Structures are given as C-alpha cells and as structure tokens.
C-alpha cells in the first residue's frame, strides 16, 4: 500500500466520525416545550399548583425528573443505535450531567432550605451550560441562546416584580427551543 493510499484511508475513516447534532437538538426542543407547558399550567392554575407549601416544589421537581428519565433513556437508545461516541459528544454529555446533578443536588435543596424561588439560580446554571455547549460546538445560535439566558438572569435581579414564570417561558424559548430547532436542522459535522 502506498503512502498516498494510506493517507486517503485515514482521511475517509476520520470523516466517518460525525458529530450528530439531531439528538442534542431534540433534547433542547423537548426541554424547551416541556418546561414552557409546565409554566403555562402553573400560570393557568396557580391555586391548584400552590395549594400546599410543598405542592409547587413537588410539581417542579417530580415532572422534570420524569423528563430527565425520558431524555436519558432516549440518549442511551440513540447512543446504542449510533454505535460510537465522539470526543465532543462525550464532553457535552458530561457538561449536561453536571447541570442535572447541580440542579438536583444543589439548587433545589438550597431553595427549599432557604425558602427561596429557584428560578434565578436555575436560569444562571442553564445559561452557563447552554453557553458552554455553544462554545464547544462552535454554534452561534446556541451561544446566543446562552447570552440571552445570562441577560434574563440579570433581568430577574433588576426587575423582580415580573412573574418568574414569564421569565422562565422566555428563557425556554430563547435559550433552548430556538437553538434546539437550529441544531436539529443543522447538517452533521
């Protein structure tokens, strides 16, 4: 085999290792829609969601946990079907695992103990995760989504009178849903 042939084989094999952006786009879209629907339910039936001290906490913890189980299962199935994991894919997986663990183990318990609304902290954590994902993927739309989430985090600080659920809906649409649609329709890299 000549050196030119060997280089061609190497290039061909390397080019087959594509970063599949569709599943990540699906995750973004799923969470964007899921949390927006939850916010609309909460806004429409506040008396029902907030009937006891912990009913809102249960609503905002149990349902996202169900969503997490569904998306984890989806991601495992997609991983098995694809058969390989790229370096970028692994890094993004770890970044979102850190987000999930921080949300469950830090933000929610701290909010319950201090009796404080967790939305602002979740928006900051989401902003950091989306922004990091955008930088890793070199995706402008995801980076912009992260920047919008950062702006929303500061908006909650300076305009606390606006309902946090409205902020959450805006955060989901601009931080997850729209970047997710772009990722879902983007060609593999």
């Amino acid at each position: 085999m000549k050196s030119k042939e060997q280089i061609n084989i190497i290039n061909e094999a390397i080019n087959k290792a594509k970063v599949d952006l569709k599943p990540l786009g699906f995750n973004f879209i799923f969470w964007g829609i899921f949390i927006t629907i939850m916010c609309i339910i909460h806004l429409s039936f506040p008396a029902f969601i907030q009937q006891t001290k912990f009913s809102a906490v249960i609503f905002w913890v149990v349902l996202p946990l169900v969503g997490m189980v569904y998306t984890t299962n989806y991601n495992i199935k997609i991983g098995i079907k694809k058969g390989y994991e790229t370096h970028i894919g692994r890094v993004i997986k770890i970044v979102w695992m850190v987000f999930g663990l921080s949300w469950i183990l830090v933000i929610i318990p701290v909010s319950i103990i201090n009796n404080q609304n967790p939305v602002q902290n979740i928006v900051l954590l989401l902003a950091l995760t989306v922004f990091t994902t955008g930088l890793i993927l070199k995706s402008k739309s995801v980076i912009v989504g992260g920047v919008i989430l950062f702006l929303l985090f500061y908006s909650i600080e300076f305009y606390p009178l606006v309902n946090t659920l409205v902020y959450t809906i805006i955060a989901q649409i601009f931080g997850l849903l729209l970047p997710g649609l772009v990722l879902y329709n983007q060609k593999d890299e």
Partner: protein
Amino acid sequence: MNKDLEKLLFNPIRLKIISFLISVDKSSFKSLSKISGATKGNLSIQIKKLNEAGYIKIKKSFNNNYPNTTCSITIKGKNSFKLFFKELQLYKNNQR
C-alpha cells in the same frame, strides 16, 4: 518510523479501525464492522491483533442479554498513530 505499528497498519482494515478510533471516544463492534467493511470474523481477528499490540482496548459487556463489544484507542495507540501519520506525511512530501 515505528516498525511494529507500520507493519500492523499495512493492513487496510486495521488502518481504518485505528483511524476511526482516534477520532472517536469509543466505538461498538457493529459500528467498526460498518466503517471498516470487514466481516465479523475478520474484524475480530484484526481488533485482537491491535489489542495484543496494546494500541486499542476491548471492553466486553452485555446489553439486554446481547453481547456488546466496545473498542477504544489507548494512549500508546494515540501517540504511535500520531507519529506514524506525521512520518507518513513527511514521506509523501519527500516523494514529490
């Protein structure tokens, strides 16, 4: 050039396997078979050779009672392949 690796990678299937594994974190046996175009039997022999030379790691497990073989490149494999590729390019450039 690393003579051992050069000898191993003279086989196009082994070259495809190691080139693909360097660009991914891990790959299933099925995926390697698809990418290399090798039959299951042939692929088993080739990955065994690469594993014995210490260039790749093979992990065997079960997924829903089905055997699942995953391969990944070792640090030795990565370093040797980088050197191999660099020297291959130098050799190609010198031929011009």
